[in-house]
C-alpha cells in the first residue's frame, strides 16, 4: 500500500495514546451541546487547541508583545527571539535542514500555496509550460494554478483517482513529460488517501519538475521529514495541528527559496528602498511582508511542542487504530447502507472518513448529529473536482484527532442510527 514516507523503525516502540486524558488538555472539549457532551469530529477542518497553546499566546501577549525585528528595547528583542524561536521549533518538527532560513510564515496553507504559484510560478512558468495537479486536490491547490494558467497560458494536467481513492500512476511519466511542477496533496482531506510523495518527487525530479506538497492534513497526523518526502515546497496550516488560526507555513528548499522573487511587497521584506527601487531581504523574511502574526506564530510553536510531547508516531498509530475501529463499527451497524469513500485499509489512509449514508443528505445527517452533540462536516470539502469523480454533490465527513477515542465513534454510530430512523 502507498505510504507517505518509508515507515519509521521506532513506530511500534511508542506508548499508545490515552485520548480521554489528552482531551482534558483541550478546554473546548468540556463544552456541552444541546445538553450533551460535545463529540468533536471535524479536526480535518480545524482542530481544537490545548491549554499549552492558549497559555503560550496569552503569556506572550501579557508579558512580551512588541513588534519584531526592528526594536532595540528589551521586550522587542524578546518578542523577536520568541518569534524566531517558533520558526525554529516548526522547522525542527518537520525535519527542515535549515529551519531559520527555510520556514516561511504565512496566513495559512492557502496563502503558502499562493506564494509558490505567484513567486516560483511567475519566475518559472510561461506560455506552453505544464503543471500537473491531481483530481483529489483541495481548491487551495487548484484555483491559484488556474488563475496563473489563465494569465500565462499554462497547461494544467491531471492525475486521476481510481475507485479505491488512490492516484492512478500508470501513466505518471508520460503526464510528467515536459512538466515544470507537480503539486499534490500528501493526504486527501476527503478520502484520507496517503499519497506516495517520495515516489512522486522522484518521478517529478527525473522529469525536470519540482514537487510541491500540500501537507495540510498530513503534518498534524504523521511524522514529517521534508527531506524524506523529497519535496521542494511543503505547505500547511497551524489551525489543523492544534495551533491557532492566522498562521500557516511554507517550507522551501533553501537553494530554491534563494532564487525566488518576493511575494507581497512592503516592510520587513526589504533590505533597502530607494526612489528608484528596492533590494529584497534575505530568506525567509523576503516572503513575509508587513508585521507578521506574532502571537499566532508563538502559538504554533507551542502546538508543535505539544504534538512532539504526545509523539507523532503515537498519533499516527492512534489514527490507524481509531480508523480501523470506526470502519468495523460502520460495517457492523449499517452494512451496505453506509459507504466510506477512499482506501479500505486503515494503514493506507488517515483518520478522515467521508461517507454516504443511505439516501440521507449530508446536510441532514450533520443536522441530526448536531442534536446529539456530534460535530461532523457536510459539503464538498473544497474539493469539487473530486466530488464530481465520486459522483456525489457532497459527503458527510468525520475526522479524528489525538483527543478522540472509541467512545466518540460509538456516539457517532448511535447518532447516525438515529438519523437513519428519522429519515426512514
Amino acid at each position, binding site marked *: 500500500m502507498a505510504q507517505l514516507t518509508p515507515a519509521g523503525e521506532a513506530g511500534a516502540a511508542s506508548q499508545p495514546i490515552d485520548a480521554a486524558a489528552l482531551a482534558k488538555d483541550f478546554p473546548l472539549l468540556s463544552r456541552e451541546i444541546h445538553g450533551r457532551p460535545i463529540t468533536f469530529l471535524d479536526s480535518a477542518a480545524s482542530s481544537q487547541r490545548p491549554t499549552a497553546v492558549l497559555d503560550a499566546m496569552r503569556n506572550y501577549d501579557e508579558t512580551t508583545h512588541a513588534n519584531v525585528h526592528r526594536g532595540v528595547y528589551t521586550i522587542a528583542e524578546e518578542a523577536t527571539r520568541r518569534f524566531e524561536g517558533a520558526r525554529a521549533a516548526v522547522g525542527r518538527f518537520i525535519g527542515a535542514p535549515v529551519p531559520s532560513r527555510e520556514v516561511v510564515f504565512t496566513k495559512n496553507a492557502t496563502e503558502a500555496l499562493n506564494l509558490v504559484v505567484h513567486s516560483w510560478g511567475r519566475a518559472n512558468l510561461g506560455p506552453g509550460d505544464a503543471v500537473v495537479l491531481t483530481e483529489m486536490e483541495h481548491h487551495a491547490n487548484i484555483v491559484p494554478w488556474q488563475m496563473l494558467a489563465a494569465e500565462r497560458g499554462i497547461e494544467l494536467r491531471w492525475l486521476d483517482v481510481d475507485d479505491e481513492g488512490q492516484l492512478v500512476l500508470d501513466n505518471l511519466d508520460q503526464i510528467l513529460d515536459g512538466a515544470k511542477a507537480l503539486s499534490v496533496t500528501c493526504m486527501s482531506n476527503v478520502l484520507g488517501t496517503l499519497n506516495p510523495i517520495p515516489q512522486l518527487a522522484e518521478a517529478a525530479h527525473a522529469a525536470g519538475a519540482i514537487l510541491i506538497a500540500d501537507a495540510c492534513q498530513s503534518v498534524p497526523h504523521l511524522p514529517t521529514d521534508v527531506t524524506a518526502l523529497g519535496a521542494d515546497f511543503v505547505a500547511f496550516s497551524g489551525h489543523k495541528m492544534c495551533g491557532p488560526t492566522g498562521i500557516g507555513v511554507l517550507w522551501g528548499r533553501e537553494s530554491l527559496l534563494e532564487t525566488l522573487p518576493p511575494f507581497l511587497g512592503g516592510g520587513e521584506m526589504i533590505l533597502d528602498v530607494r526612489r528608484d527601487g528596492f533590494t529584497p531581504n534575505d530568506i525567509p523574511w523576503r516572503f513575509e511582508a508587513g508585521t507578521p502574526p506574532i502571537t499566532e506564530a508563538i502559538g504554533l510553536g507551542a502546538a508543535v511542542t505539544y504534538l512532539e510531547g504526545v509523539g507523532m508516531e503515537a498519533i499516527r498509530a492512534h489514527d490507524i487504530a481509531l480508523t480501523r475501529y470506526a470502519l468495523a463499527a460502520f460495517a457492523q451497524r449499517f452494512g451496505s447502507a453506509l459507504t466510506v469513500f477512499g482506501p479500505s485499509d486503515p494503514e493506507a489512509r488517515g483518520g478522515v472518513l467521508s461517507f454516504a449514508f443511505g439516501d440521507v443528505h449530508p446536510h441532514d445527517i450533520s443536522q441530526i448529529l448536531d442534536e446529539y452533540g456530534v460535530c461532523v462536516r457536510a459539503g464538498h470539502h473544497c474539493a469539487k473536482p473530486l466530488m464530481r469523480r465520486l459522483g456525489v*454533490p457532497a459527503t458527510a465527513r468525520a475526522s479524528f484527532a489525538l483527543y478522540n477515542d472509541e467512545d466518540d465513534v460509538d456516539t457517532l454510530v448511535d447518532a447516525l442510527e438515529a438519523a437513519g430512523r428519522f429519515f426512514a
Partner: protein
Amino acid sequence: MPGLEDLYREIILDHYRSPRNRGELESPPAVRVEGFNPLCGDEIVVTLDVDDGILQDIKIGGTGCSISQSSASLMSAAVKGRPLAEVYEVISTFKRMMSIHEASLPGEGSDPGATGDEGVDEPEAIDVAALGELAALQGVVKFPVRIKCATLSWNTLTQGLDEAASPASST
C-alpha cells in the same frame, strides 16, 4: 434552543419522501433554469411553462437535502396553475418569511439567544395563513445555515420567470 421538530415538520418530511411535480418538462417550449448552492453542492433544475399570464406547469429536478427538496416540492404545489401575479405574491411572502433573521446573522455568535425568537412567532406583515403548507418551512429561519437550502428553488423559480418574461416581452 430550537429543536429539530421546528425544522423537520411532518409536512416537510412528507414532501421530501414523496416530492410533488418531480421531473422535467420538455424544453423548449418550457423554460429550463438551474440553481446551485455553492455551500453544499446542491443543484436544482426548475422547468416551467408560462402561457396566458398563468404558470401552467412546473417540474422540479436535481438533488439536495430534505429542506431544499421539500421546499421545492411545496413551492411547486403552491404556484402551479396560478396567475403570475399570484405566483409573485407567494414568492415575495415566502422570501420575507425566510429573511426575518438574515439581518441578525453575522454578529450573533457570542450569544445566540440574545437575538430572540420573538420575530419568528409574530412575523410582521406576513400572512402566514395565506402560505398554507408553506408555513411549515417557517422553522428554518431558526437554523440560519439552512435558509439557503430553503430559498434555492425559489431563487431559481424567480430566475425562470424572468427568462419566461424576457424573450416575448409582450407589453
